[in-house]
């Protein structure tokens, strides 16, 4: 059976059920039942209209499950009002589903779990494995999320920004285990971009494609981190980069800049440079200025200081850094790098060691510890 096809159909099938009046949680259960049925039946007898098949089976399951008298009467009314069967474009419905799964009443982790389950069509077990939590925990998270959004009206447009934030969270988790969350996030964002015409959706898709194109070179075979300057650029996925750049250019042409487009522009400038030395840092600083204007985030200012250090020299970078709070994540790592480039190896080594202590993940800690060790053992021996 074509799992990719089934998963791509899941959100619109679910959306149709909810549109017909099914409660979200019950509709979701019914769709999962239909998917299981599809796995069983399709290999021998594949329907000509897979989506129509799934809608029919899921709707039947839903009706079976809500056979209580009062409920049935209400549902039958709904069935009566239902439009005659036919090819339903359901484009809007799918979009509503994205909004619902990213609803502001959900915590970020619930929104992520619900999106992967309801829009992505992943099983609870797959999501639990991807996030390294017990299946029972993920099941609870998803059912709580479903209860939370059960009363939410399905006909009001939501906020695209919340959807983009959730997809970005999924992307950032990268991958662990069988499910490649980054690839899944790209798939869902692509699907969203096909549904809605919005420059920031395009911006996020471009950003993901550009980052994804470089992912394989970001770590060595032993899992250690390879910094951008040391990456083997011949292994970057040029098709993915070209697609990302094209999507980004079309989005930028519409002159409604947002933070994802600006971030994608920075990623595109990195991806464009034939060598690290040829990176257009001056233009990157300009994009960081835009980002600061759009987000006013301290983390963006920190990244900007790195770019300034490359464009105007380490002293300028350190001056930009001086304006920032040193409790920011990765502040010490940036300071260490700029001090090293400025020739102050003692300070750099001390700051690398300090940054390693604060690193949020193992690969980064090991990388920073190696930087400190390199400077400490390279001097005075």
């Amino acid at each position, binding site marked *: 059976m074509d799992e990719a096809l089934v998963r791509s159909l899941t959100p619109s099938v679910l959306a149709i059920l909810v549109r017909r009046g099914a409660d979200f949680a019950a509709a979701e259960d019914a769709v999962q039942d239909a998917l299981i049925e599809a796995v069983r039946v399709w290999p021998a007898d594949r329907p000509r209209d897979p989506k129509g098949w799934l809608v029919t089976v899921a709707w039947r399951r839903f009706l079976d499950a809500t056979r209580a008298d009062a409920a049935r009467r209400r549902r039958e009314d709904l069935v009566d009002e239902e439009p005659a069967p036919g090819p339903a474009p359901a484009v809007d419905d799918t979009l509503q589903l994205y909004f619902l799964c990213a609803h502001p009443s959900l*915590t*970020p*982790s*619930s929104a*992520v*779990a619900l999106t992967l389950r309801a829009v992505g069509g992943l099983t609870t077990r797959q999501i639990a494995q991807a*996030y*390294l*939590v*017990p299946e*029972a*925990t*993920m*099941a*609870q*998270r*998803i059912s*709580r999320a479903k209860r939370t959004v059960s009363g939410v009206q399905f006909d009001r447009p939501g906020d695209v920004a919340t959807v983009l934030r959730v997809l970005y*969270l999924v*992307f*950032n*988790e*990268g991958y*662990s285990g069988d499910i490649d969350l*980054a690839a899944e996030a790209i798939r869902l964002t692509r699907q969203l971009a096909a549904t809605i015409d919005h420059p920031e959706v395009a911006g996020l898709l471009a950003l993901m494609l550009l*980052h*994804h194109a470089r*992912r394989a070179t*970001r*770590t060595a075979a032993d899992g250690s*981190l390879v910094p*951008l300057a040391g990456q083997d650029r011949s292994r970057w996925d040029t098709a993915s980069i070209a697609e990302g750049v094209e999507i980004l250019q079309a989005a930028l042409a519409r002159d409604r800049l947002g933070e994802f487009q600006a971030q994608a522009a920075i990623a595109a400038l*990195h991806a464009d440079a034939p060598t690290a030395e040829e990176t257009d840092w001056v233009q990157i600083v300009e994009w960081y200025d835009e980002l600061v204007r759009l987000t006013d985030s301290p983390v963006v200012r920190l990244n900007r200081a790195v770019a300034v250090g490359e464009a105007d020299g380490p002293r300028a970078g350190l001056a930009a850094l001086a304006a920032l709070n040193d409790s920011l994540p990765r502040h010490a790592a940036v300071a260490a790098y700029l001090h090293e480039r400025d020739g102050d190896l003692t300070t750099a080594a001390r700051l690398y060691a300090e940054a390693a202590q604060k*690193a*949020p*993940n*193992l*690969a*980064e*800690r090991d990388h920073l510890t190696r930087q400190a060790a390199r400077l400490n053992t390279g001097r005075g021996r």
Partner: protein
Amino acid sequence: MAKYLLLKHYRGAPAAVNDVPMDQWTPEEITAHVQYMNDFAARLEKSGEFVDGQALAPEGSWVRYDGEGRPPVTDGPFAETKDLIAGWMVIDVDSHERAVELAGELSAAPGAGGKPIHEWLEVRPFLTAPPTITE
């Protein structure tokens, strides 16, 4: 979505405020304490934040390699001052604030006199895999 380890210490942490050894509590107070801990774990399971939790025996040994062909060295019977972990719980929560909030709740487990023991718990973030975006 970050995992934290909540560590309960037998020794090594600052003393609890309501610091009465458990064998001095009434059986009912012990039952209430155990119930509180079970309820806490059950609540986290329901909220989708529970990953794992275990209690550890008090007897632990420091062990060290002692060279080729020799048995490992252990710290022997004179270990009264070493830190000892009583048990742990792994949670998966949306923020560091939430981890601290939960640790605070756990520290409020009832002790002697039915009053919270106010014990110190250690909250440690897991070092995770790097995110996709690091530059």
